[in-house]
């Protein structure tokens, strides 16, 4: 079901957390709400499921205005960050709870509960209590409980934050599998760009209560709208250096470096201070614009090496390259940048 947040605002007392946010989630889509912690992601989620009353604006499920509808009647499935499983109920009772509250016939409750348990692969755990489950198993139970009522929308609040690295990888694909199998509209709240990129159809990136950009993961990676977006996506992250436009090129002060203006970017007027963003994978042996500097840090990651390149003016660029041992710490090197992959930003962070 299509979900629309129409100029939605939320404040707690005097604290305005969200102001005039408009966001549309398409039917059957999985959208990531990505942003640093404290930016208002959970607040948005709680407004959608009705736990928080909105301060302004509307929330629509399909064509129905849900703004004033209590959460009991919104039919949303929520997986809370802490899972919020009922500790005194067994797994089976947890999953069946939304159905029993709706007074479905017991046979139907049992059938749907078991169907859902099969979907999330916890058939063998039905008689256990939450305290007797591992984190990943609890996660699956929470998912089953959220999905069993066939909700209008599935909301996931940092679902992977409490899992260890290996489980996180496993649950990432599991959640995506289940979402695709059920075809449910889903919103995934996360501060982890890898999760957002790998699991979702589109990403809405948030900062300080505002949505900065909504796009598919590739589009957002290739075409960040602001320096914040560019900085949030990518691991190891993008590096920024200050430069000044002059004669159709970009001069990095005190470093004897000239970079061409990337294609599709309007050449800024001479003397304009700009911020140049260079992703680590675009700095290395191949490329067209030479960059000299000293290797100030080397991190071996097995298949690849991560280098910090300190320029003459003290700025630091990052480079990720195939593992090799021809350079080492404190070497002076001249590497190259692929200038068509550069991002130019104005001083206020807007993409040029």
């Amino acid at each position, binding site marked *: 079901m299509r979900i629309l947040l129409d100029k939605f605002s939320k404040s707690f007392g005097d604290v305005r957390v969200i102001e005039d946010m408009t966001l549309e989630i398409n039917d059957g889509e999985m959208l990531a709400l990505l942003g640093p912690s404290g930016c208002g992601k959970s607040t948005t989620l*709680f407004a959608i*499921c*009705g*736990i928080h009353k909105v301060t302004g604006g509307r929330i629509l499920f399909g064509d129905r205005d849900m703004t004033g509808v*209590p*959460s*009991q*009647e*919104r*039919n*949303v*499935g*929520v997986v*809370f*960050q*802490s899972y*919020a*499983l*009922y500790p*005194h109920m067994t797994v089976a009772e947890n999953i069946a*709870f*939304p159905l029993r*509250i*709706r007074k479905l016939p017991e046979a139907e409750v049992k059938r749907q509960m078991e169907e859902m348990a099969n979907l999330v692969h916890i058939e063998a755990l039905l008689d256990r209590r939450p*305290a*007797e*489950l*591992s*984190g*990943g198993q609890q996660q699956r139970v929470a998912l089953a*409980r959220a999905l069993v*009522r066939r909700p209008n929308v599935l909301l996931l609040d940092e679902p992977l934050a*409490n*899992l*260890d690295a290996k*489980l996180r990888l496993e649950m990432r694909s599991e959640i995506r599998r289940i979402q695709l199998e059920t075809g449910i509209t889903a919103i995934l709240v996360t501060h982890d760009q890898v999760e957002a990129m790998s699991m979702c159809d589109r990403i809405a990136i948030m900062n300080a209560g505002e949505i900065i950009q909504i796009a598919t993961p590739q589009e957002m990676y290739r075409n960040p709208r602001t320096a914040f977006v560019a900085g949030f996506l990518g691991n190891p992250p993008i590096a920024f250096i200050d430069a000044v436009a002059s004669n159709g090129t970009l001069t990095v002060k005190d470093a004897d470096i000239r970079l061409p203006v990337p294609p599709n970017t309007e050449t800024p007027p001479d003397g304009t201070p700009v911020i140049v963003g260079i992703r680590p994978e675009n700095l290395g042996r191949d490329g067209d614009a030479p960059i000299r500097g000293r290797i100030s840090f080397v991190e071996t990651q097995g298949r690849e090496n991560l280098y910090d390149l300190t320029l003459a003016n003290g700025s630091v660029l990052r480079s990720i390259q195939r593992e090799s041992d021809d350079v080492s710490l404190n070497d002076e090197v001249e590497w190259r940048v692929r200038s068509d992959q550069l991002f130019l930003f104005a001083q206020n962070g807007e993409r040029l």
Partner: protein
Amino acid sequence: MNASRDIAQDGSAPFKARAVPARRSLGWLNSSKGLGIVLLMPALMLVVLFFLAPVVLTAVFAFTNMSTATGITGGAYQVSPGTLRVLSDRYGMGELAERLGQPTYIVDEEGLAALEEMGIEPGIIAGLRDDHLGETYSSRREFEREIRDLPDRPSTRTVKQISAEFSRSLANARFRNAGALVAAAEAIDPDLGDAEKDALLDATYTGWTWTTDNFRRLASSPQTTRVLLNTVFFVALTLTLFNTGFAMLLAITTHYIPERPAGIFRIIWFLPRISPAVIYVLLWKWLAWDTGFISAFLDNFGVRPRNWMLGSATNAWVFVILINGFVGASMGMVIFASAIKAIPQSLFHAASVDGAYRWQQVRHIILPHLKWPILFVTCYQTLSLLTAIDHILLSTDGGPGGATEVWSLWVYHTALNNYAGNLQYGYGAAMALVLVIIGVVLSLIYLRLFNYNALIIKPRIEH
């Protein structure tokens, strides 16, 4: 603790003990165990003095017949018409009682010696010894005629003096100890058997004795059943209506209202708990007096003023339960409220989106989480209600006509304060002991329950 003790011993024992022998005597102080006992001593003494001693003394008193009449120190042996009747009625020794009760004069060496002491003429004494030694007279007149007929012819005054010395009657005599009584009795009847002596001693003893009669009396008294039922009624109703029921209502309602008014609301319910019992009960009495609030108010509607608290047994119970209930509700309220507060907020959120409205949340989320707090409050309050006395004492004092007399109040009335004036310490102690035993048994059961609770809550496994 073990570890630190071992370290202390390892460090000091082999070397220091040899090097500084003078220290050895205080070596136990170096171990944390020894020091622990020293530090615990004051607390231990207090526990023994204030907790153990009263229980032990109660148990001891419970097996005596101490009362105001017997005193709590030893008694004497008093022969009276009453004790002689006891001797004939209870022991079936009517003949003995009659013999001991009759005035008896016996001419014996003891009496003669007494005469010598008094300085009676030796001739008279010799005459008595020669003619009458060993003879017994059951009337004074007869005996005095014999004395007057002696060759020396004593004066009337001397005759009276002499006869008094040979009077061996036990009627109205008081003896310091058993030996004196037995000697006096044997003087009258030298053939006294052991059973008769014992019966005599028992019947005439005025002090307290060891006995198990208290328990027999308790088991057979119809009042026991009545007071027991009163107590069960009082504890059960106060507990369910107020200490848990009303407390839970308060805790749940304050959970769903904003923090500030909830806090004020809770403090109001704390007032009965923190106000002095006398003042608190006085307010209730003022409410219920025939010139009090209820009467004054109902007077407007033509209802005749009366004492609403003591007007009937039902009224008295209503007041007793209200008075105690409002005091007891605050504890449950605080415990339940904090237990509800400890429930993660996300569970309520989850329940809301799962479709549970408020009362369903209470039923499916709050109540299951209150299982152990409810059990705890029930256990704790049962014990305190069983021994509750002050508020009932101050309000109805067990009235009207014993309708609200509960066990602990009955103990108080029996042992420490009653209208008849004869305080029955022993009987009261036996009642108190029964209460102590009930309390201990209940406590043991409760402790087991809570240990069980600790066992079944397993640590939460992550990942």
